[in-house]
């Protein structure tokens, strides 16, 4: 047996009592694959999370949708197992494996009982190393993807998302279409699936976390069995996206009773020194709770919507500051006026000391609530690795929130918030709104 190297760094999170159980170990397998592990032997199963950086942005420009379709085909058989045999095998093992794709990652989320670990890992290995991409499976899944794409063309949220991406990111892969178009997907071949597979699956952009009933030694062996034979490198990542949002309104005519609006301006990078101040600012302005300025003004005071939110979107290759709202066609213009006014008010007048304190108490108190379950913790560990936050981030994160001052928030509000640069994409038949540029 080869020696195991387990990092000596085990963080005991006594500073945050709710996270005392979350002790992260960095495990390096005998063949050099790194993963983050939280051991918890109280329930005989584990969650394993694999994430491959690059995601659907690695599609060639003329083959958009190839990686999305390939990801959908991963569960359609591998090695000597056809699709149905493969599915029966997973059922007999009572394991679940979910695949997800985004602009920045392809992720595999697996959950399996300790007693079935070896069989599930063998099956997963074949999934990643020996895909079949059988012609009948390709046609079956292509049919599902095409049906979804046709649906997206008549879904106001999808229409708004696509229009926004095109406007903000232009010809960069972030500009879409991330799932391809009916034309590109119809033209994809089986060879394109193998090509898409080779673009994603390589060791140099792989991030791994494991949470649950497994020891560091067992995890080292699992990592080697599963992943050590992947190629070292793959195609290069795309370069940064130039964000081109010009303030104004874009109306996309669509016959439906309630208009759906996405709004956005330029954002802030995850590693910017002001990121935490911006994070607290956003919590006050439009973060998820009922307490935000936008929820108070648009929903609680005026009843103009069921929900209005804003969120920082720091992606790998660009950052934007986005939000969303939906109001009936005769009221959306008022909702947009209120959002713009609040955006302006916070930019010019700032927020109050009480708001900053409340937001910090909420953010620091709610943070431990995220760590509730093996799969949830595994996904958090992946994000920490991909954002290069370090093993001690769970301990230091609340300190970073608490260090934000009223002056920081108001300075960042003045610098970041750009009411003139805010652009609204509105899908529906909004009364009193027309496409315009500020």
């Amino acid at each position, binding site marked *: 047996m080869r020696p195991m190297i387990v990092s000596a760094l085990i963080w005991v999170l006594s500073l945050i009592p709710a996270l005392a159980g979350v002790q992260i170990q960095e495990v390096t397998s005998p063949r050099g694959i790194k993963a983050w592990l939280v051991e918890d032997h109280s329930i005989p199963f584990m969650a394993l999370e694999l994430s491959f950086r690059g995601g659907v942005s690695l599609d060639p420009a003329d083959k958009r949708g190839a990686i999305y379709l390939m990801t959908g085909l991963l569960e359609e058989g591998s090695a000597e197992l056809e699709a149905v045999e493969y599915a029966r095998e997973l059922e007999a093992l009572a394991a679940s494996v979910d695949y997800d794709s985004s602009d920045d990652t392809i992720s595999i989320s697996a959950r399996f009982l300790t007693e079935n670990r070896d069989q599930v890992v063998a099956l997963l290995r074949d999934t990643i190393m020996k895909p079949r991409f059988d012609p009948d499976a390709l046609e*079956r899944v292509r049919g599902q993807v095409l049906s979804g794409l046709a649906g997206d*063309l008549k879904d106001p949220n999808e229409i708004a998302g696509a229009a926004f991406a095109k406007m903000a990111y232009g010809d960069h892969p972030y500009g879409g279409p991330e799932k391809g178009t009916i034309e590109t997907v119809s033209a994809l071949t089986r060879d394109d699936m193998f090509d898409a597979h080779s673009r994603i699956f390589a060791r140099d952009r792989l991030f791994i976390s494991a949470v649950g009933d497994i020891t560091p030694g067992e995890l080292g062996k699992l990592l080697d069995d599963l992943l050590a034979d992947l190629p070292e490198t793959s195609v290069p990542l795309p370069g940064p996206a130039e964000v081109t949002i010009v303030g104004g309104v874009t109306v996309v005519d669509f016959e439906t009773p309630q208009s759906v609006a996405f709004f956005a301006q330029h954002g802030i990078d995850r590693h910017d020194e002001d990121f935490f101040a911006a994070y607290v600012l956003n919590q006050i302005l439009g973060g998820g709770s009922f307490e935000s300025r936008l929820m108070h003004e648009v929903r609680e005071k005026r009843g103009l919507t069921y929900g209005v939110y804003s969120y920082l979107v720091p992606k790998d290759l660009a950052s934007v500051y986005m939000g969303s709202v939906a109001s009936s066609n005769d009221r959306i213009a008022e909702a947009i006026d209120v959002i713009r006014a609040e955006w302006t008010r916070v930019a010019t007048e700032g927020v109050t000391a009480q708001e900053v304190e409340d937001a910090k108490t909420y953010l620091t108190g709610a943070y431990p609530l995220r760590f509730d379950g093996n799969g949830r913790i595994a996904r958090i560990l992946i994000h920490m690795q991909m954002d290069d936050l370090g093993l001690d981030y769970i301990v230091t994160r609340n300190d970073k929130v608490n260090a934000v001052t009223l002056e920081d928030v108001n300075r960042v509000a003045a610098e970041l918030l750009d009411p003139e640069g805010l652009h609204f994409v509105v899908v529906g038949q909004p009364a009193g709104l027309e496409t315009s540029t500020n």
Partner: protein
Amino acid sequence: MQRFILGLALAFSLGSSAFSEAAKEAVTSFTLDNGMDVIVVEDHRAPVVQHMVWYRAGSADEPVGSSGVAHFLEHLLFKATDTMAAGELSAVVAANGGNDNAFTSYDYTAYFQRIAADRLELMMQMESDRMVNIRLTERDIATERDVILEERNQRTENNPRALFGEQQKAAQYLNHRYGVPIIGWRHEMEALDMEDALGFYRTYYAPNNAILVVSGDVYPDDVRALAEKYYGAIPANPDLPERFRATEPPQTAARRLTFRDPRVAQEYVSRSYLAPERDAGAQRKAAALTILEEVLGGGTTSYLAQKLQFDQQIAIYTGAFYSGVSLDDTTFDIVVVPGPGVSLQDAEDALDQALRDFVDEGVDPTQLDRIKMQLRAAQIYARDNVEGIASRYGRALTSGLSVADVQSWPDILQQVTEDDIIAAARAVLRPEGSVTGWLMRAEEAIQ
């Protein structure tokens, strides 16, 4: 085949006593003197608690003509009480680092907070307060009514599949309130007023109509002491009515509907049948239907997927849906999404042929073994989600089931035989007892 042997071996090992231990849930239940039921689900892995109050009152308990009032009242419970300002409860929860929300269904309305375990007392203080002390203004009514209308816009009016589902449900239930949408019919929502909301509140919001479910890092004795202090102090409502529900007449004629909307991209066939629900002390039929759902429509290996997606390329998607947790008769639903060039009539005919073949052929025993294996494993996975366990009890207890029914359910599922499943299919999937809906694109109105 190796895989076959593997499946059997697993089924055997997970059937052992080691499995029962691994799947054990730490659940305690008791009742306060005023009739309020209490469920405690312990999970001491992290010092977090979820505090929920479930009322045995949902949209199906609403007075005729006031559809949506149960859900409207749910929104209004976030307004003022005698001692708290509008929005204060949520603000206090947030200021203590917690999250809160609420939800309404046909048979229940529930409120919850997730927060650090040492804040449980504060949650009970505020939640017990709004059980009996809300104070509404006409402005609250007007603004929040606009909010629920926008919620209906978002969930239903903007989504042709939801509009179609609402029509199909209305066609399914001739006499029972499950035929009326939870959020309400739009014209009735627009007329909801203060008296509608307060009438529902005074009738149903009382400790003897509520269930407290606390889960996470808590101990039953501590929960009992706090519950007695805050909820135990509220008198029972002596006038709490029996839950009167009209029952469905026997369905003796197949019903059909066609819903057209220009926003439809993908047409499909939706079929529903009235079906028995889980009843206290009598859950076997529902158990057979729960497994029938998996056998017929539980993914790639299911019977309908095999027949309609693999053997023939009729469908791009098939699914079956059954939820046995319901106070009254529920439905068994099937969806078939036809592939390109396949008409809805051909898809429906293929579905009916497959259903006839299924009851003739019987259940594949290896498929049944796999399903039972997954159900056993699900009990282990469930322990990783204590809120899920808590919600399971809340739903069951507001739907006429007891704690004992919840705890015997996994064993009852394991006892289901192939014959039980076929008998359930014959009893429920009757052509004359069906409702068949076609969701269609508007532009194909004339063919």
